[in-house]
């Protein structure tokens, strides 16, 4: 399969994720959108890695997966804090500080 | 006295800093100790100045003496290079004399909010900056000292100043900061464009602008011009000066007028002219034009003032116009006149600000319409004011004359290399001769406003509101602070050669590039 198919797929995923981060107000959905973006990166890395027969890309992808897990862990912890203080996961209600 | 040759300037620059450090260590309650340390420090600095004067080789004033040249920031090739010649010497000594006088004057009446510790520490820090600027021979070092002067003055106006002090201090700071940002950029450009990458003023001057194209020189000169002209201040960059002077405490005004303004003109003579001769030639008529506009404008503004201190401030704009006119001619005659004018203005205007301060202290107002009859209420002070007004308007026999008259005269015969207002050398002569005529009219106006001021403040009878008030005549600290200045005005007025003989060779060497 030509590499472009993978690139187009990943570009689409990336844009969808970026849209989600910017447009969604529910913090859990925002976190999921970030996951989407990171997975787009992984598709890129693995596709390139397979094309070039270079294992570095796959190693990179493994690191991305691990760190993404850590990120989501922290993210959910913060969301939980906010939920405890505000009783809502809605980001629009978090606006104590003037922007 | 070899060690003295090597160390004199370093000592002169940093003795006040040591004094300041000691003052900061003394607890605030020990006012007497603080005052003694401050006075002693300034006197020790003056003693070093006297030592320099004794050791100075007067037969060789064009040469840099007491040089120190040590590594400072090798990575950018900036050096700790100090030295003085016939042009810096009078200004250096002037600074060293004025500072102790200011300290003596303020010993018994510190302006509100009192706090002598901070006030005296700032004066000493100011002295570091002023002395440093006059002796620095490296552009980066010059820049640092030039800026160090800003901080103490900013606080002096802002903390101890009059009702509108905040506005005045910020305005003063921002104007100067803006100028020095451009100046710094020009310094850096000089570094990269000169034949050999260096910040050394003497080395750069010895190239006489070689290797820098005329167009670039014109641009760079403009950058330096802004930096220095704001400090002088020249019309139309003068607007910070009246505010700063009006709001500043007496001693601040005196230091501002006597020394700080000279940093700008000194910069022109020491840096802008010798390093960028072609730029100077192109800009000369415009500098001349702004100078004479400043002379006339300053004089007219004086006539519109009601506040005595503000009047003296505007008269400073006019007087510095004469100094700049002398520099604009690009002749050794003009530069000689300029340096003399700087010293004379320092003595006379410094004195006038002292008087304005003392008058305000006694009458609690500077409104000239409310003052009057000083000759009656405090005759000695009245006479001194009269004397200073005469000196300021350029009465022959007093120092002011030798600052003003030769400067006007120098415009009769400007350097043949200087451009005229039409951008070529054909128009030079009539351009500068026109300036000369206008400047001469300026001297008449100066006589007008100074006599008018004297008439309103000194003559007549005291106004009813002060009729019963007991006005102290000159008291002892004032005598001590003022006598040296008054003596200076007379002595340099009678024997102008005391200064001209020092500056002459140095001035010729500065203007060598324009004599062709």
């Amino acid at each position, binding site marked *: 399969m030509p*590499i472009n198919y993978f690139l187009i797929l*990943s570009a689409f995923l*990336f844009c969808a994720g970026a849209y989600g981060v910017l447009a969604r107000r529910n913090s859990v959905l925002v976190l999921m959108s*970030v996951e989407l*973006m*990171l997975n787009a*990166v992984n598709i*890129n890395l693995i596709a*390139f*890695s397979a*094309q*070039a027969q*270079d294992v*570095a*890309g796959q190693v*990179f992808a493994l*690191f991305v997966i691990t*760190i993404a897990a*850590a*990120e989501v862990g*922290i*993210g959910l*912890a*913060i*969301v939980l*804090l*906010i939920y405890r*203080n*505000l009783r809502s996961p809605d980001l629009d209600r*978090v606006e*104590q*500080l*003037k*922007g | 006295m070899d060690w003295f040759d090597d160390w004199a300037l370093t000592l002169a620059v940093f003795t006040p800093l040591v004094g300041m450090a000691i003052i900061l260590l003394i607890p605030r309650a020990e006012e007497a100790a603080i005052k003694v340390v401050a006075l002693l420090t300034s006197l020790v600095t003056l003693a070093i100045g006297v030592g320099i004067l004794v050791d100075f080789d007067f037969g060789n004033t064009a040469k840099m003496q007491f040089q120190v040249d040590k*590594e*400072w*920031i*090798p*990575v*950018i090739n900036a050096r700790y290079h100090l030295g003085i010649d016939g042009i810096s010497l009078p200004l250096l000594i002037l600074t060293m004399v004025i500072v102790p006088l200011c300290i003596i004057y303020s010993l018994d009446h510190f302006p509100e909010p009192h706090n002598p510790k901070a006030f005296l520490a700032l004066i000493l820090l100011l002295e570091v900056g002023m002395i440093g600027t006059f002796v620095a021979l490296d552009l980066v070092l010059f*820049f*640092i000292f030039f*800026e*160090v002067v*800003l901080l103490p003055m900013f606080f002096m106006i*802002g*903390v101890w100043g009059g009702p509108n*002090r*905040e506005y005045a*201090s910020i305005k003063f*700071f921002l104007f100067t*900061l803006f100028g020095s*940002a*451009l100046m*710094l*950029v020009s310094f*850096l*450009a000089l*570094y*990269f464009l000169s034949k050999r990458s260096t910040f050394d003023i003497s080395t750069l001057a010895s190239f006489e602008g070689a290797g820098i194209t005329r167009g670039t020189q014109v641009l760079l000169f403009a950058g330096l011009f802004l930096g220095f002209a704001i400090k002088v201040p020249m019309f139309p960059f003068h607007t910070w000066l009246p505010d700063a002077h009006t709001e500043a405490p007496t001693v601040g005004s005196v230091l501002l007028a006597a020394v700080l303004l000279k940093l700008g003109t000194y910069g022109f003579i020491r840096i802008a002219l010798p390093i960028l001769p072609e730029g100077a030639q192109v800009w000369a008529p415009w500098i001349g034009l702004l100078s004479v506009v400043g002379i006339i404008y300053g004089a007219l503004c004086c006539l519109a003032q009601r506040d005595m201190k503000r009047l003296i401030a505007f008269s400073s704009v006019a007087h510095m116009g004469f100094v700049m006119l002398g520099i604009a001619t690009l002749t050794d005659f003009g530069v000689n006149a300029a340096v003399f004018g700087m010293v004379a203005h320092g003595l006379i205007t410094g004195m006038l600000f002292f008087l304005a301060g003392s008058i305000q202290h006694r009458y609690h107002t500077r409104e000239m319409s409310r003052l009057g009859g000083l000759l009656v209420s405090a005759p000695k002070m009245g006479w001194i004011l009269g004397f200073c007004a005469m000196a300021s308007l350029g009465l022959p026999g007093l120092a002011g004359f030798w600052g003003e008259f030769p400067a006007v005269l120098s415009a009769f015969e400007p350097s043949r290399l200087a451009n005229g207002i039409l951008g070529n050398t054909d128009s030079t002569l009539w351009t500068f001769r026109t300036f000369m005529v206008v400047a001469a009219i300026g001297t008449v106006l100066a006589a007008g406003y100074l006599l008018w001021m004297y008439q309103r403040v000194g003559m007549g009878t005291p106004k009813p509101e002060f009729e019963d008030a007991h006005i102290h005549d000159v008291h002892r600290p004032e005598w001590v602070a003022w006598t040296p200045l008054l003596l200076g005005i007379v002595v340099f007025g009678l024997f102008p050669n005391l200064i001209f003989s020092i500056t002459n060779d140095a001035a010729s060497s500065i203007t060598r590039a324009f004599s062709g």
Partner: protein
Amino acid sequence: MGTPYFDYHALAPVIVLAAVALLALVVDFVWKDGGRRAVPQIAGIGMLLALIPVFTLAADGETRVMFGGAFVVDNYALAFAGFFLIVGYVAVLLSYDYIDEGDYYRGEYYVLLLTSVLGMVVLASARDLITIFVAIETVTLPTFVLAGWRKHDIRSNEAAIKYFIIGVLSSAVMLYGMSLIFGLSNSTLLSEIGSVAGGDNPALFAVAIFLTLAGFAFKVSAVPFHFWAPDTYQGAPLPVTAFLSVASKAAGFVAMLSVVALGFFASPNSWQPVIWVLAAASIVVGNLAALRQTDVVRMLAYSSVAQGGFILVPLAVSGDNDAARAGFQGVLVYILIYAAMNMGAFACVIANARRTRSTEIQSFSGLGRSNPAMAVVFTVFLFSLAGIPPFAGWFAKFVMFRAVLDAGTTAAVVLGVLAAVFSVVAFFYYGTVIRRMWFHAAVDLGDTGSPRVPGALVAAMAITTTVVVVIGVYPQLFAKIGDLAFRAT
């Protein structure tokens, strides 16, 4: 390939930091009561311990390469590693009383701080995309938690969530760029990326560079990626804000500097305009926005955006081979000086917030009379930030202008003029605080805290003031570091 080569001397700073972080965690866990007091000490001493191998390595002077070129210990790496450790130590000093007095978990706080610094030290040596990515995340992840440390305070929560979302978004953007770079150059090593320079698809390479730099721009809060900074800075605990505004920002610059100098340098047309725009926008927007702030932390937040713009200026003009060295040196020297003055300024803000329970600029009124020593120190930092000699800030500006004039191109000069004009504008807002302190009488703020400045804060102020004054008078020390760091490249 066999066993990878380990140079334990070169790895010593990293190993020491990691060991200390674990030790702190264990001590806090095992030794309940004493641990509360011991952990901050362990963290502080750990930072200083890790400095020792940095010095021995610097004295040794040899460039050590490991893991196939992914981890390099050279002067550049050592300069930044030492810098991060010292900043980390000052951050411990700033945190000491603040964390002590709040109702916070102490042990974990310092463990996270140590971990973040660990990431920075690795980042200084990282020379390939994977290592840079992992190091940057090690820097950032703990700071998400630190920003939300006051967990019952909704403002702190908000600071954390904003910082978190922007942080992960920027990581994703950066990673996407990195994945494209990997695809185009078939390598993750910066040196190899540099030699390929986009190969047959320069347009895509430019896009990749743009995305990567945009990711870093979030980290350094350069305009237009800055909007999280003021909110996060204001909401986070003050010592964390200080740490974020200096260390974490500097880490972003180091990453940017590494990839630009070693990876992208050969194709200046794709990175130079990006950085130029970031620099110009940060200078203009940061300075103008700072003008209208009434809260000192927000003011410092925008000021740090503006200072970030100034830091980018030398980088933005370094595309030309001749100007590169002056440019890179300019960035490094500026970062070092910026760190000292900003850390110091935050130390004063923390001390004042203890005194007045407020971070409003108004709360500084009359400080010149009530605590002249602290007012003098804060004034020194503010003047330094404004670039007024004889405080270190002038030299930072100086090296910035030097890089601009060394490059001498029209774009460089335009940026230089912009920088010159706005360094004057900057004095307006720094001056506002100075005026408050010296020219105004104190305002009554009602509930006031303790006027005493605790020892740890005094130590932090002493360290930073010394740096700012000594470097201001004798900049050769930092200039030399900058010179050595870029001698090889």
